[in-house]
């Protein structure tokens, strides 16, 4: 369903972030992308969201070339991809409820759906009691769980989690990974980037290892090897 076709990204200062990267992701897969900082993991994710354009090559999502979608249509594509970031990226002036509701409103969902679905996903990430709190009233782990709830509320085909545990302690890291696994068990494709060895080794799923913009390993049931 996702296909990276010989993608190269060279930034303006001539630093090579991605160097001839090709791989594909099947529906329902849980795929981890590992590598040191600066290996190109985040750039890879940004390509899928059309946040960055490749210098060469193309990225396909469900047979659509992501970078041929015009700017005013790209939001339709992004609604099929839920995103979770290392720094949570919640809207600071909105409560937990409103943050999740925003993603649904943007997708044009009705008020009834919002009223019934938002409490439901917050329950799923175990935050029912923080529904009316603003992000700065939540801990890092709680904020990340709100972000995950926001990512899954529109039932996307794929969840892209870019270092979601980077700012979290081990307990919260474990919880977040458990939630992602649960979502994957329900059929959603997950793309996770991380440099947390413990997470990778406990998952026992497909691992793509990157180094200096190149894919150096692609293991069916991988471990963190670097």
């Amino acid at each position, binding site marked *: 369903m996702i296909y990276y076709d010989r993608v190269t990204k060279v930034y303006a200062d001539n630093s090579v972030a991605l160097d001839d990267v090709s791989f594909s992701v099947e529906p329902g897969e849980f795929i981890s992308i590992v590598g040191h900082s600066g290996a190109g993991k985040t750039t890879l994710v940004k390509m899928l969201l059309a946040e960055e354009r490749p210098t060469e090559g193309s990225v396909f999502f469900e047979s659509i070339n992501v970078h041929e979608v015009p*700017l005013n249509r790209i939001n339709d594509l992004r*609604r099929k991809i839920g*995103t979770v970031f290392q720094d949570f990226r919640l*809207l600071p002036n909105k409560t937990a409820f409103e943050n999740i509701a925003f993603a649904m409103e943007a*997708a044009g969902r009705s008020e009834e759906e919002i009223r019934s679905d938002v409490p439901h996903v917050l329950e799923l990430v175990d935050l029912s009691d923080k529904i009316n709190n603003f992000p700065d009233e939540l801990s890092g782990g709680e904020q990340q769980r709100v972000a995950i709830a926001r990512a899954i509320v529109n039932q996307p085909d794929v969840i892209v989690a870019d270092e979601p545990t980077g700012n979290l302690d081990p307990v919260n890291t474990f919880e977040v990974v458990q939630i992602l696994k649960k979502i994957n068990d329900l059929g959603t494709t997950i793309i996770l980037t991380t440099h947390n060895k413990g997470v990778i080794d406990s998952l026992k799923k497909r691992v793509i290892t990157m180094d200096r913009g190149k894919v150096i390993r692609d293991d069916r049931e991988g471990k963190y090897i670097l």
Partner: protein
Amino acid sequence: MNLVTIRRIIRAGLQSFWRGAFVSVASILVMTVTLFIIGVTVFAGVILGSGLDELRNKADVSIYFLTDAPEERIVEMKTSLEARPEVLSVDYVSRDQALAEFRERYKDDQLTLQALDELGENPLQASLQIQARDISQYEAIAEFAREQDVLEEGVAPTIDKISFYDENYRTALARLQGITDSASKLGFFVILVLIATTIAISFNTLRLAIYTSRDEIQVMRLVGAGQFYIRAPFMVEGLLYGLVAGTITLLLFYPLTYWLGSATADFFGGVNVFSYYLRHFLWFVLMILGTGALLGAISSFLAVRRYLKI
């Protein structure tokens, strides 16, 4: 776009207006200054324009007739004056009219009115009030009237006296007109620059306000919000800034024009800015609120644009 979307956009705009109170207050204050300057410009234009009109519209030449002058002679004179190319208009003020105007002017002065009543008859003269096309033609008009009056032999002359402003007054008026003309040209330019500057400041304030939201805009884009859906609440917010700033400006003008009203009436000859403000209040409401709302909405529209390119 349906009703639900519109409601969501308005709600989001109101919410960020309210929750970002500090930014809102700062933006409103800056926009108030802009609208205030625009309003002051309008007042200044009105005062300058009407002050000069007042001077220009005073009768250029007045012909006063003897009290026993027959009316048809006066009307005849009026007709022949009106036929002259240098005459712009002629107003006939009859003796009765002159008396009525006199009574009106001295209605608070019992002593004068009493003296008038004791006279028993109307002592006032009929007159023709003439406006010339050009200030250089006063004398020619007066001369023509005098000749006309003594043209028919055997008939007693009817004109008592002719008054027109003398050379000094005329040159003073001409000079004043020159000054106001160049002043209004220069003033127009200065005002354009001033207005452009304050609009630029307002625009930049809103841009800064939106700059602080650039990360949010990016997040909104990444969770799949459309460009218009992100932009519209900012426009609602900008529109609100403009409306609030406009209301403050309108309120500020009330005591200000009240305070300046009699001074401008005395000094500039005629226009009391306070009564002008009250008489044209609806127009001011539309102009100030409209300008504010447009400025806010358009500034926001433009300021958000660059952050949507993702």
